[in-house]
């Protein structure tokens, strides 16, 4: 008897889920659902709208793999940059552990003669560390704005 009342709601629940999905399937499902699935691409595209942006990448810092890249071009191979900058992040994380600092790295700035390279570590629930990598043209970029915008992009990505 105890099981009987519990069963129908469960069925109803899946039933309604299915109905809802079916309705949506008939109404232009591709257009409606596509954006939710293209999140990393959207985030990277947004990064290129930052003033002075040359290229951006989303990187897994243990494997060094770029999960997505945008821009860059022949002057800046973002896949290579992604893999190489994982060493930068790892070195800093390690140093902080040696120092016993219980803080978290928010971002890392590398200033070149003509470019800024900004690395923003993502506070993800994912067990693997990720970072956003942004290369900026020093002449055109507003560093404070860029940091602020990158922070917002991270929040939008909601990993």
């Amino acid at each position, binding site marked *: 008897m105890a099981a009987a009342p519990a069963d129908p709601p469960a069925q109803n629940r899946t039933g309604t889920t299915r109905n809802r*999905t079916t309705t949506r399937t008939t109404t232009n499902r591709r257009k409606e659902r596509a954006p939710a*699935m293209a999140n990393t691409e959207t985030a990277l595209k947004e990064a290129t709208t930052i003033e002075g942006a040359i290229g951006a990448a989303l990187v897994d810092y243990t*494997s060094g793999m770029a999960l997505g890249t945008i821009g860059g071009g022949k002057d800046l191979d973002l896949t290579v940059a992604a893999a190489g900058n994982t060493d930068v992040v790892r070195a800093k994380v390690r140093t902080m552990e040696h120092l016993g600092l219980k803080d978290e790295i928010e971002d890392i700035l590398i200033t070149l003669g003509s470019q800024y390279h900004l690395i923003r570590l993502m506070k993800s629930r994912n*067990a693997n560390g990720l970072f956003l990598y942004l290369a900026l043209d020093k002449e055109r970029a507003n560093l404070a704005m860029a940091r602020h915008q990158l922070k917002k992009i991270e929040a939008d990505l909601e*990993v």
Partner: protein
Amino acid sequence: MTAAATPVSPMLVRLAEERATGVLVRDHGALYLADGHVVHAESPAAPGLDVLLTAGGQLAPEGWQEAVASAGARREVARFLVDSGQVTGGALEICHLGALHDAAFFTLAPGSGPTRFRYGVAHWIGTVRPVPAAAVVREARRRRGLLDSVWPHPEVDTAPLRRRAPGHGATATRRQRALLELADGVRTPSAIARAVGRPAFNTLIEVRRMAAAGLVETPSEPAAPTPAPLPDWVAGFPADPDIALLRRLRDALEASL
């Protein structure tokens, strides 16, 4: 470095060129293609998407089961997870890409037996983000080179992980400590990856770093000859499928759904 020069599955290159759809099966895993792009990969050596999503607390195990039960038959499990609000699109995509490249790395391991392809097969996870086959091959090769550049001893990848007595100043990072806690001399890096819910390659790279730092032992003998091969029901598909049986099965499923 020798591994980097080995051509990885010429068949995959050809299938990508002809924009094939189906599943490519080798001894240590399977790659699912759609229009010549890799859409999913599985390997017994790599934790599946379900493990990666649930271990981090991003998804409850029941949520995964419900998604498979509700949307598996129409091959839209990934969409279901996002549409039902259990996982955000970004989180799923990142996790799926990680799982795809992880399994592909083991599937494309040099010299892992014959390569077979079955046309028309699609995975029930559905489409998340297709990756060009060339990018998958390139990444697998990069990963192999990276492992060897850290510590050129592949023996540590498959042997049970054993700690070494500390005493020379090397310390483990926070991530490495989580792995060391499970180094009981029985579990292999693959088993540890599954237990902590991280991609197997990410575990291998940490294991090689720890071996290089002298935190874990490097076995002198090549250990277990091969990682777990695919189960026979996946790897040993017959050349001629029983079409009539499949049709009956499909009809029965459609009738009951």
